[in-house]
């Protein structure tokens, strides 16, 4: 006992006396024994509107024509061959279905109605979302660069079609860190029949240190991989073990003077706190039945509803960037993925929880400091796609996303598309503009948030990106 105390004392004394001075510099030197700039968060460039982001990623590419971009004129042209001038020089996915028979325009397959004070059209598929429509700002003229799922998803997330660049959540936590003390700063949640295309690279940290990569949480079982010991070792005490590890690590710190060990000691402390914070996070027992009902959440399941509730709880705990993936919106007209039953199902899965998330954030006073983003990697064509059933093809010229919270101008629609909804006719917005705007709301200038790699300063928006001024209050 006495021996141990001596060890501890010696360690601490050594630490402060021998290593204290110059430790900061040494720490930097060792962590970045390379040309990498300091990887510690650098803080915002200007005061932020949002503290956190919840990105509801509708994986597969939802059809704007069935949800938000009401085109009564398209109804009139239903079944007509799409004018050639629209198709000239354009490339589509599944070109072969478009070359087998000339693509024909497809009128909206759902009824629309005006909602809220803003009187915005929303389709019958989203009756709940329609109830919070005044809290949302729509942009109907988003353009992206690639019409295939995995590259387009990677593009939305990383600003590059090429795989391996840092994702938005990584850039954000690299830029401003996180306020969560015992949870990761960038959390990913998934629901739906399959995983998002592109997999872990969607939330990868690319050339940024891996400590900024998104951490996938599961809403059933252990929220984080390896958060608790395997079942057959359940209940093995941890605290004494941790203290022993920490003491021995401190002794090694004293012996070697390597500040990396200090970082490791902190990492173990945080891991320990996560083991408590994680289960507490997914424990819905303190949520009122009313809240659970509003979301449609059922403890233990891995539904979009549960993930929306988790997202609120994560944001409450200071997590910076929460991304929810919900599959599958790829409604080509296959046997199942079609604009009939397939679309009905996926809309039902997201509609109520989405509404609940907005309401819940609002009633808890969190909406002002949280930016909620809704959208997919692209939209769908005004032309129908006839396969086994009816669907629409991928469309990258103009698709719809919506934004809420963070003090943005809600209750409006930015951008206008032509009568077919094919091209923007007003306020073109590019994916890089979306990214620039999200960073801006977090207090980050997208042109200044850079990282030097392979001799070049990289950023999320490459050399592009304009703020979507109409969104900003």
């Amino acid at each position, binding site marked *: 006992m006495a021996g141990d105390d001596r060890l501890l004392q010696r360690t601490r004394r050594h630490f402060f006396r021998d290593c204290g001075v110059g430790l900061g510099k040494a720490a930097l030197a060792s962590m970045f024994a390379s040309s990498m700039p300091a990887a510690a968060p650098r803080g915002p460039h200007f005061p932020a509107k949002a503290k956190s982001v919840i990105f509801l990623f509708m994986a597969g590419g939802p059809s704007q024509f069935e949800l938000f971009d009401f085109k009564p004129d398209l109804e009139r042209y239903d079944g007509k061959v799409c004018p050639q001038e629209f198709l000239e020089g354009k490339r589509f996915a599944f070109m072969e279905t478009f070359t087998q028979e000339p693509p024909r325009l497809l009128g909206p397959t759902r009824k629309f109605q005006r909602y809220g004070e803003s009187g915005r059209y929303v389709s019958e598929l989203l009756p709940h979302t329609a109830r919070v429509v005044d809290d949302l700002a729509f942009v109907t003229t988003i353009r992206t660069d690639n019409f295939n799922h995995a590259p387009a998803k990677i593009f939305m997330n990383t600003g590059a079609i090429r795989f*391996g660049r840092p994702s938005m959540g990584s850039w954000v936590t690299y830029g401003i860190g996180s306020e969560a003390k015992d949870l990761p700063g960038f959390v990913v949640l998934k629901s739906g029949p399959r995983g998002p295309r592109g997999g872990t690279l969607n939330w990868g940290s690319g050339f940024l240190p891996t400590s900024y990569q998104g951490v996938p949480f599961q809403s059933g079982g252990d929220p984080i991989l390896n958060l608790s010991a395997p079942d057959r070792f359940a209940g093995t005490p941890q605290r004494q073990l941790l203290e022993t590890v920490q003491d021995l690590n401190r002794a090694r710190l004293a012996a070697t003077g390597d500040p990396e060990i200090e970082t490791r000691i902190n990492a173990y402390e945080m891991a320990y706190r996560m083991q408590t914070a994680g289960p507490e996070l997914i424990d819905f027992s303190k949520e009122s039945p009313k809240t659970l009902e509003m979301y449609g959440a059922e403890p233990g399941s891995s539904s979009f509803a549960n993930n929306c509730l988790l997202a609120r709880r994560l944001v409450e705990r200071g997590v910076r960037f929460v991304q929810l993936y919900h599959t599958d919106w790829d409604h080509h007209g296959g046997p199942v993925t079609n604009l009939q039953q397939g679309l009905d199902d996926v809309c039902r899965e997201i509609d109520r929880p989405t509404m609940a998330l907005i309401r819940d954030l609002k009633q808890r006073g969190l909406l002002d400091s949280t930016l909620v983003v809704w959208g997919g990697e692209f939209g769908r064509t005004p032309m129908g796609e006839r396969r086994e059933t009816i669907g629409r093809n991928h469309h990258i010229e103009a698709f719809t996303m919506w934004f809420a919270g963070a003090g943005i101008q809600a209750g409006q629609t930015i951008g206008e598309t032509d009568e077919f909804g094919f091209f923007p006719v007003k306020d073109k917005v590019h994916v890089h503009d979306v990214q620039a705007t999200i960073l801006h709301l977090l207090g980050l200038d997208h042109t200044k948030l850079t990282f030097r790699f392979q001799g070049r300063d990289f950023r999320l928006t490459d050399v592009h990106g304009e703020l979507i001024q109409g969104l900003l209050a």
Partner: protein
Amino acid sequence: MRTRVLLTLAVLATPVAAQDFAPDAIAFYEDQVKPVLRRNCVACHNAKNRTSGFSLASREHVLEGGNRGPGFSPEAPASSVLLKAVQHESDLKMPPTGKLKDADLAVLTRWVEMGLPWPKTEVSADFGKPKHWAFQPVRQPEPPGSGHAIDAFILKKLRENGIQPSPEADRATLLRRVSFDLTGLPPTSAEVDAFLKDPSQDAYEKAVDRMLASPQYGERWARHWLDLARYADSNGYNLDHEREIWKYRDWVIEAYNRDMPFDRFVIEQIAGDLLPEPTEDRLVATGFHRNTLLNLEGGIDFEQYRVDAVADRVDTTGAVFLGLTLGCARCHDHKYDPISQREYYQLYAFFNNIDELSGEWGEAGRRRAHEPLLFFGTSEEKAKKAAIRAQLAALEAELNEYKKALDPNMAEWEDGLTADEKAKLRPDIQFILSIPRGERNEIMTTALGGVFYKTDPGYQQRQEAIRAVSKLEPKLTSTMIMRELPEPRPAFIHLGGDFLRPGIGVRPDVPRALPALARQDRAPNRLDLAQWLVDPANPLTARVTVNRVWQRLFGRGLVDTENDFGTQGSKPTHPELLDWLAAEFAGDWSQKKLIRRIVTSAAYKQSSKARPELSDRDPYNELIARQSRLRLEAEIVRDAALAASGLLHLAVGGKSVFPPQPKGASKLGQVQRDIVVSDGPDKFRRGMYTHFWRSAPDPNLMVFDAPDTTTTCTRRSRSNTPLQALTLLNDEGYFEMAGALAARMTREVPEGGQARLRHGFRLCMAREPEAEEVARLERFFKQQLDAAPEDESRAWLQVARVFLNLDEFITRE
């Protein structure tokens, strides 16, 4: 003779000289045109920069043109690229900062209409600046002193700075360090004991030679190379199918173990298929550039992703061998280094001719997406495979004929369906039936046919026969290789990096800033490129390679930016040492000798203890006044635990394996895979054999910074995160290893107590614990035992877990 040459030149020069313009036309150029060009154009389009390949330095240059072809068309001056560009009438808008003033525009228009009058050909050759250091030939500096050459260079610089080197690390630490560096495994207790007891002068050298001769050396250094090769066991993108290319991985291990000379190592990987004798081994080696991603998503244009793969081969070649960031020049001329966009596509042309999945293959290509492949097996097996493939093709053709014969009966079948029968069909089939026959498209008819045919017994029998025959096909191991097309694909500049906007055509060639290719009487190919990479005149390959080896052994290279030896990269801290190492290396191309040379230096053997007194003067340890503590790489963290626990199964090579993974980890990609954990000894293979799914890799590797394998990785990051702590604390695999370690400690020290504790510590840290460390561990053991006195093995398990969680355990000091 001499006269004849002059005469020939004069004849050749005639067409240019013949362009005599009237004096007032020349005056118009001098007075009106030249100022406009000077103000607006020549900052970029001069003979040196040639932005987008285009120079305005002479009339000749304009006629020759840039990436989009000639700048001026004598036949149709009004549609000249030059004029279109300044008129902002095409997608090319010059100057990019804004359209010229009307008056200036009028001057240029008039000039072009006059036929581009120019006084005479003059090319300003502005190469005033000395060549960038890395493009200069490698020198052969004499070491500045006697003894180990490396130390002479290092000590000279330390002395100049008035700094003493660190003392040699204690012997146990040194053995553990070099063991991890050379084999990726900790030394065994027996090895430690033998080394500590060996009084001979060359005890260390003997240990080094033993390690270099062990098969684990090849594994360790092959894994470094596989980072560069972006090796993985799946295709990437969304579907991320499994691919078979582990034979390539094994080829690299074998090459390291046999110490294949590096020049051959490079040539066989880049162009083994083009060598006069493309043996099976050499074909396997070409897997290096087949490790590119492969997109098989529905509805894509295969050509787009082939182009991306070819570009990745250029970028990888640049980073791995030349230390150049070529990728910048894919869309535009390199901003900093002398690599033009044209030169990028000249390199691209070398890799553009692989007979692989492309736009031309079309949808049918999906079924043979991994080709070209090399199959392994006896000639009988290969013959049987071919025969069965032919038989299957014939059966399928017959089936198609049979289906066609059935088609006329389909309408009758459809009309005969009762309402009940219809209701039992899939919803999409019911939908198709609701559409009048004449309005259905091919997909719908095919889907309906799929249901209809199955009702026919003849069809069923044929399907059954195909299934039966395909079961007979021998499953032969294969590996992805390179094979050149008989006719090269035409290569173009991709304007703005977009393959749908072709610029001028290009031939394979290397950048002008580097030595030229050896001249051939035919178009150069990949083999010429490969030989050029390892040509003694190439100033980059040897420097880049020795620098990366140095980086693996010290934590950072002599050139810190190991993948950028261009003008934006950092300068070498020890330029003479770098060149000396490069020259020695290029003398015999032996990687083993290079590594041995470095690890036997006093610089390498120094203690890694921090030196706070130098934290101001040399915060990055650029002067190498000490070694560095480095966290082990992802695979090695696992290997170390397997070795300490005694579970490690040291089989070299073979198919990739599936150690246990945290639940749910394999389901992070689009395809929700269930991993079947390998059983038996395969569960305990080295980390480098863990199957790598690109879209859902083993999280225990990723958490310790294994590369994502989408692009080449020349240096891994070394993060230090809570998720690493959770892995070591809670992962199923680490519990198992801790259990085995505890059992081993118990088995090997049956008397228990402090001796057992010390033994466990030694197994993990390869050193004796300090008295204070023993005391702390004893206290912990007692706590654990007190909590559950009936279960001593649990207390030992907990002790073993402490060992596996120590920073020192996962660090090479």
